[in-house]
């Protein structure tokens, strides 16, 4: 099993969800995050004093999948989030040692979906 963590542009969330649904990935968890990467920050100012903003709003998606779903999931995220512009985001994949469904106590692959 894999835990897939993706940082994407906030406005791409709906498209990514759509792409995942099409590949039968319907479970995920989403948090808001601030990202710092290659994408240039921008300037704000407040009462005449500049502020360098380089933590940009991102959405963090976490999806646990069985190994055979890893590739389609990654593809779906790319399909939904890619614009080709800097700031599109990253996907991180981590091995998942275990997974438990709280409701039923099921463990492992059975619990993921």
């Amino acid at each position, binding site marked *: 099993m894999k835990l897939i963590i993706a940082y994407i542009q*906030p*406005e791409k969330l709906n498209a990514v969800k759509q792409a995942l649904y099409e590949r039968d990935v319907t479970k995920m968890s989403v948090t808001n995050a601030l990202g710092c990467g290659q994408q240039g920050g921008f300037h704000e100012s407040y009462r005449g004093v500049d502020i360098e903003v380089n933590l940009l709003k991102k959405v963090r998606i976490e999806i646990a999948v069985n190994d055979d779903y890893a590739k389609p999931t990654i593809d779906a995220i790319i399909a939904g989030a890619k614009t080709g512009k800097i700031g599109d985001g990253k996907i991180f994949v981590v091995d998942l040692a275990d997974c438990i469904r709280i409701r039923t106590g099921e463990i492992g692959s059975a619990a993921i979906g």
Partner: protein
Amino acid sequence: MNKKRITGVALTLALLCAAPAMADEAMTVEDLQANLNVVWTSVAAFLVMFMQAGFAMVEAGLTRSKNTVNILMKNIMDFSIGSIGFFFIGFGLMFGQKAMGGWFGTTDFLLSGVAIGSEGWETQWDWTFLIFQTVFAATAATIVSGAMAERTKFVSYLIFSAVISVFIYPVFGAWAWGSLLHEDAGGWLEGMGFMDFAGSTVVHSVGAWIGLAGAIVLGARKGKYGPDGSPKAIPGHSMALAALGVFILWLGWFGFNPGSTTFGDGMIGYIAVTTNLSAAGGAVAAMFTSWAIFKKADMSMTFNGALAGLVSITAPCDVVSPIGALIIGLIGGALVVFSVTFIDRVLKVDDPVGAVSVHGVCGAWGTLAVGLFALEEGLFYGGGISQIGIQLVGVLVAFVWAFGAGLILFSILKATVGLRVSEDEELKGLDIGEHGMEAYTGFQIFVTQ
């Protein structure tokens, strides 16, 4: 010399000696009524001024947090630019002696005929009248910002807001209310017998039709309509601010309608009653209508409904019975729900705060309602249909003028400075794009559209 001290002293004297302390010649009861009118009209003007806060809160609350700074800036600037512009140009256009058979005024710019500091200055009516009319003009201007929220370029906004205050509003005002300062400076619409006591049409519809033109020329916000044209909800970021705004507006309306008597007598209380009943009716009707249609008592519709009731009663508030007022409000409240839905789904015009429905559609309804419910002239009270015909003319003229002038104005701006912000700026929010700042620093806000 310090006037404050003098009046203090005069008062003390007046109270201690009970001698006529104020005057070379004795003050008359009529002088006092004039003073009372000043006090009342000034207070009413201040209440109407406070409506700016109401509009700012409603518009900010019903839009997204990424555009809050922008909408607040627009609200303060339309009032500021409008106050200055109306003083220099708009007031004279509207209330000066009319040229060409009642089309616009050509005198009284800057109230220049009124000597300042001279004998009798302190009992002048004109300045009070000016401040009262200024806040009305600013109301018309500020309505537009709501309909065009979340996508309009700030610099364009400043320009067209000025044009509205110095030209589009006062010219129509001249037609309908031209005689309010000089009896013989009446405009052609009022000459026909057009009745719009406090401005359902003159202020609200005019503002809204300009806004409609703006919303059309701008196009919808990104994400407002799906690829298949289906409307999407773009919820506002703070119902608390929106509600506060509506309560402030409701308060302000007690300046708007009863204040339009500009006279301190029992009509104030009467108009307050009709105004309040209509507002209450609007809220109730909008709530039940939304409940029936959407299966939920929708909050933004209910609060819009209160405003709908207020706009609807603005024209007829002094000539209808309380029951009439209530009915007018109920209809206004129901109307606003259908109108918002119609504009959103059928016309597919994106009006984030419902300004066109509230101020335009209900403004028209209220103006027509004079012809139906007026105790003397109204159809339902045996007044025949002539008045409603006249009202209809006024409503249509307002639409043609305001919508037409708006279309031209916005088209010119679109072709020159540009009317709409870039896609990227719209996405990031106008606060960062136009003003380089955010409204709620520190708060985690999660917007995916």
